[in-house]
């Protein structure tokens, strides 16, 4: 048998193959050309006229990622009590556009949306971390500067900014532009929600004191490993669940604060430093390596996700871990009901020296960056939209977003709002936050000021309230404020940090698991320098200097 290819077929095949080859590898270039370069700042049009009173928009499109608690029962934010009520008040029909999936999938859809130029009227996301930064988003004509519009059409938000000048400077770019209606944590108590948690019944059983230093931790964890605290005569205890990702996350700072540094960028007296190239970081990694070798750290720590963590806690095998006030303490106390002694409690962040506080733990700034709403250049009626968004910062809007609908999700008791049993003991068996999601947005975030009461009422166990005090003991002076970068800085930093993150995420795990010997730490530091970590520090330093001058 012999295949003879006719000329026509040959030509076709070459055509097809070449097309497949080239197109298959360059998916990025299918992005439509976008010629929208009209950054019409509405301020110019009515600069010399008196502010015109505008109404609410008739309709608007609103892009916002959906959180897990909302996804449990909702398919669209129009089903949320607060938004239903807002529609009654304003008559505005909001067309919510929710990206599918979560995490990287949402980032992907956001980036493609911006690149395609096919923008909705408003976008809710973390504008601090968008590629090339918020200042650049204004310059490139993705979103508009809001300062003038807010002055003219947002009385409630303007009033808030006037009363809180420190927050007002946080939400601006270095050039003074306001780019979003931000999510604001309205009280110091709301800013702390993550820290170390330990099985206190195990401590009591083995006659141990709650550990406060790294050395005491090691003693306690060793006892957890060897002395069978769960009493099943099997050595199945996992003393401590370590998470490399949470060490490297500047918003969480697991454990690393004990060594007076953060894993990534931090500052000492206005001087920016990078943690992973410091000798303190080597000490931290060395300690973790020895813990891992001794079996004090979960041997599978690199592969543990939320589900496995839940299984280890409820399966009576995990002794200590880092977690959240409601997402961990509250959840596990709810879940483990049939255990005779199960008891967990928060610990303060450990330090190296007895009697000293940890240099840093988790603390969120008043303006965390997330859930901020910006108005895009595609919006035809930005003034009206500003007026609509401003409602979120009014007395009425605050009640809607923080507590939902009076008589349904909350009632006024002794002059202050209290969640009803619809939320606290949901008849359909929904968790607290899932029930909240049906009426309000405070469980997650949005363009409003989070009320401290809405936060504290989630805490049904005293351990959760104790956590805020215990975790809040960290000094938290070395964290960087929410700075903004210029377009060039931002893309240069992103390019450096992407490589650094990919490399360091691998290396921390390898060092601790012993795949990479600790003797190659200097080599690791050299590699970080060759990727350009020192240039990244310079960029962050410039941004911090500008921030401090605001």
């Amino acid at each position, binding site marked *: *048998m*012999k*295949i003879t*290819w006719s000329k026509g077929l*040959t*030509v076709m*095949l*070459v*055509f*097809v*193959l*070449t*097309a*497949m*080859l*080239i*197109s*298959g*590898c*360059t*998916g*990025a*270039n*299918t*992005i439509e*050309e*976008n*010629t*929208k*370069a009209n950054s019409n700042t509405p301020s110019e049009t009515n600069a010399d006229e008196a502010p015109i009173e505008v109404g609410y928009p008739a309709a608007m499109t609103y892009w916002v990622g959906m959180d897990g608690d909302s996804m449990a029962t909702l398919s669209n934010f129009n089903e949320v009590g607060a938004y239903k009520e807002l529609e009654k008040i304003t008559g505005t029909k909001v067309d919510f556009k929710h990206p599918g999936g979560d995490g*990287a999938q949402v*980032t*992907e859809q956001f*980036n*493609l949306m*911006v*690149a*395609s*130029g096919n923008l909705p009227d408003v976008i809710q996301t973390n504008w601090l971390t968008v*590629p*090339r930064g918020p200042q650049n988003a204004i310059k*490139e*004509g*993705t979103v508009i500067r809001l300062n003038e519009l807010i002055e003219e059409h947002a009385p409630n938000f303007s009033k808030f900014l006037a009363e809180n000048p420190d927050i007002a400077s946080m939400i601006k770019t270095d050039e003074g532009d306001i780019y979003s209606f931000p999510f604001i944590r309205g009280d110091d108590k709301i800013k702390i929600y993550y820290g170390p948690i330990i099985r206190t019944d195990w401590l009591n059983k083995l006659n141990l004191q709650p550990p406060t230093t790294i050395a005491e931790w090691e003693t306690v964890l060793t006892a957890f490993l060897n002395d069978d605290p769960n009493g099943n005569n099997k050595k199945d205890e996992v003393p401590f669940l370590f998470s490399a990702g949470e060490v490297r996350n500047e918003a969480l700072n697991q454990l690393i604060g004990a060594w007076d540094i953060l894993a990534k960028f931090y500052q000492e007296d206005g001087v920016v430093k990078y943690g992973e190239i410091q000798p303190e970081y080597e000490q931290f990694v060395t300690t973790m390596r020895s813990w891992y070798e001794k079996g004090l750290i979960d041997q*599978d720590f*690199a*592969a543990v996700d939320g589900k496995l963590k839940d299984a280890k806690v409820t399966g009576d095998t995990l002794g200590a871990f880092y977690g959240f006030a409601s997402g961990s303490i509250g959840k596990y106390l709810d879940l483990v009901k049939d255990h005779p002694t199960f008891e967990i409690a928060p610990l303060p962040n450990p330090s190296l020296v007895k009697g000293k506080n940890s240099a840093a733990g988790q603390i969120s700034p008043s303006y965390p960056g997330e859930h901020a709403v910006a108005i895009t250049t595609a919006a035809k009626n930005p003034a009206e939209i500003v007026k609509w968004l401003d409602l979120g910062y009014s007395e009425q809007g605050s009640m809607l977003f923080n507590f939902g609908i009076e008589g349904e999700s909350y009632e006024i008791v002794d002059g202050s709002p209290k969640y009803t049993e619809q939320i606290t003991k949901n008849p359909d068996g929904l968790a607290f936050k899932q029930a909240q999601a049906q009426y309000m947005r405070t469980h997650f975030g949005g363009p409003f000021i989070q009320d401290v009461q809405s936060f504290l009422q989630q805490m049904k166990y005293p351990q959760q309230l104790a956590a805020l005090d215990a975790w809040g003991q960290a000094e938290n002076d070395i964290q960087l404020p929410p700075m903004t970068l210029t377009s060039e800085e931002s*893309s240069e930093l*992103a*390019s450096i940090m*992407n*490589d650094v993150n*990919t*490399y360091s*995420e*691998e290396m921390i*795990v390898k060092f601790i698991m012993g795949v990479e010997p600790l003797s190659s730490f200097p080599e690791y530091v050299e*590699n970080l320098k*060759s*990727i350009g970590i020192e240039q990244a520090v310079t960029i962050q330093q410039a941004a911090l200097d500008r921030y401090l001058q605001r």
Partner: protein
Amino acid sequence: MSTFIFKLGKDLRRNKIIYFMLLPVIAYYAIFQYGPMYGLQIAVKDFIPSKGFLGSPWVGFKHFEDFFGSIFFWRILGNTLLLSLYSLIFFFPAGIIFALLLNELRSNKLRRAVQTISYMPHFISLVVIVGIMFDFLARDGLINNIMAFFNIEPIPFMRSPEWFRTVYISSEVWQNIGWSSIIYLAAVSNVNPTLYEAAHIDGANRWRQMWHVTLPGIMPTVTIMLILFIGKFMSVGFEKIILMYNPVIYESADVIQTYVYRKGILEANFSYSAAVGLFNAVISFVLLILANTMAKRLGETKLW
């Protein structure tokens, strides 16, 4: 040339319905495959969405230099080539061997049953396949439980860089062996039966018949399939890798296309990833031409 045009015109008139049926295909390639190549220019520009392709500033070969200078360049290039090479060595012949084995089955019923069963995994969505792999290969999954029964230490298959390629290739073979054998089975059934008779009379046993009759008979098909396979050499199944990998196994799992995805789509470095993608395409193109030239030298079968 003029005779070609003349012939083409004549042929067009004679077979206009057939050419008409070709139009949608040409339109598809023009619009979805050739049209987008217009955007390739962003590889030498700093793409800014609001300025569009034409308005974005030129930067020359900056993105290529960044890529070649990156500490990940050799790793992802090596990973891509190794993974492709392994699938060339282990996956590509698997379909041929499977087809030959099926051909030796005497019972038609059994052959059809085996064929149908072996096709089935091909129609399961990749997401489901990878989900199954995670369940089976987890530390407390089926495979490790069986190994524990024989007192073998559990292996975290999906978390070990050294296991990634094995897991990837073997699952690929399992999923697609039946499907990829179809074309060879068709070729085998085309081999002239008189050749087998002649071989039989000359005293060749089953093994000899397979070696001297069946294999040479399907060789042209194998060559064409090989050239096509090499054309896709650099575009390893990156959807599957994205589903399978995590930072712990980047060391062996991160390939050019996953890197392009992370850089371009997740980090919005569209220009950089267009440059990396273009580099990938150029290598593929060169490989394809090389493979075709080799085939031309070695035998008569070739793609063009």
